[in-house]
């Protein structure tokens, strides 16, 4: 500290960066208690890279891979759901915990309230169907289409998988091409392979 204080120095010192972690945590808790949040979010480090987890008061609404751009995903959530989007990790503790168990190989299904408001129409039907594909099993895009009573909707199933708002939790990684090849994945093919290997190994 110096006594050599011009007004600018003084103002710089008053404006010195401060750690707001504790204040932010209090805001998260009170905002959630008072029902003021549209979306709470956090990130989680996993074997397939950092994931963004976001929840509304109704349940988990979005899981995103880093390659989707977390800022872009949050901006999209603010537009589509509501702009009161706050970093509030505690609100996502159950989801984070279950994902950690999944990646550790000790959980084969998720028991979380899900908010499906980002899925609609045929895509929504695909997303609702996907959890019926058991852990460690796979189906082709065509089989999923057939299960939904629309066997020609193979491309639409592919599009639905590519726009799954809840990857990993809603297991679009269990859908492959009919020739057994991997097909695309919104988290990248390496992530898709890693998830399938994890499930086959368990």
């Amino acid at each position, binding site marked *: *500290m110096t006594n*050599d204080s011009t007004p600018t120095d003084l103002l710089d010192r008053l404006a010195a960066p401060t750690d707001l972690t504790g204040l932010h945590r209090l805001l998260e808790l009170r905002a959630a208690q008072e029902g003021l949040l549209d979306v709470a979010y956090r990130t989680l480090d996993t074997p397939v890279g950092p994931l963004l987890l976001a929840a509304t008061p109704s349940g988990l609404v979005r899981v995103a891979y880093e390659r989707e751009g977390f800022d872009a995903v949050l901006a999209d959530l603010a537009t589509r759901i509501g702009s*009161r989007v706050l*970093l509030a990790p505690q609100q996502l503790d159950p989801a984070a915990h279950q994902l950690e168990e999944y990646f550790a190989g000790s959980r084969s299904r998720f028991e979380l309230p899900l908010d499906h408001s980002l899925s609609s129409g045929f895509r929504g039907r695909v997303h609702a169907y996907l959890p019926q594909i058991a852990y460690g099993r796979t189906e082709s895009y065509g089989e999923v289409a057939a299960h939904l009573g629309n066997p020609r909707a193979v491309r639409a199933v592919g599009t639905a998988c590519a726009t799954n708002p809840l990857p990993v939790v809603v297991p679009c990684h269990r859908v492959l091409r009919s020739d057994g090849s991997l097909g695309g994945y919104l988290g990248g093919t390496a992530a898709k392979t890693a998830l399938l290997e994890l499930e086959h190994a368990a």
Partner: protein
Amino acid sequence: MPRRDYPVMSMQQPFEHTVTEHGPTVARVVRAVLGPGPDADDAWSETFLAALRAWPDLPEDTNVQAWLVRVAHRKAIDVTRGAARRAVPTDTLPERRATTGLPGSGEPDLWAAVAALPERQRLSLAYHYLGGLRHTETAELIGGTPAAVRRAAADGLRTLRQTLAPEGASR
């Protein structure tokens, strides 16, 4: 707020950006007004909770920082009134609170000097130099003329400089 009569549009950016961008400014302002400590922390939280409540209805052209600083002013008053109701009788001035060890309360001498300023000087300085309000906006908040507010802010800054840079300092 005069803009309340305008047609309102939702603020579409994630609120977290607002906390990141303006949280430090609001923290400085409430710490200058109330002294670093639990009361300032309360005022900070109440300011951002109020912002969350109002957020969907704030007009797009709102100057968010100025809006937050005005809310922080009202919340600081609320906290002070609450503290006065809770207070046990004491001769110690409320702004002379202990700061040791609390996060963000480095430079206890500096904050003590701010706390020792007369209230109008402290508020004029905090809202203009730390909160970025124009002197006319501060005058609307705390009364008095913009010229008087400008003088109070300048006087406060001079007092701080004298307190913290005693005789023999190089400037």
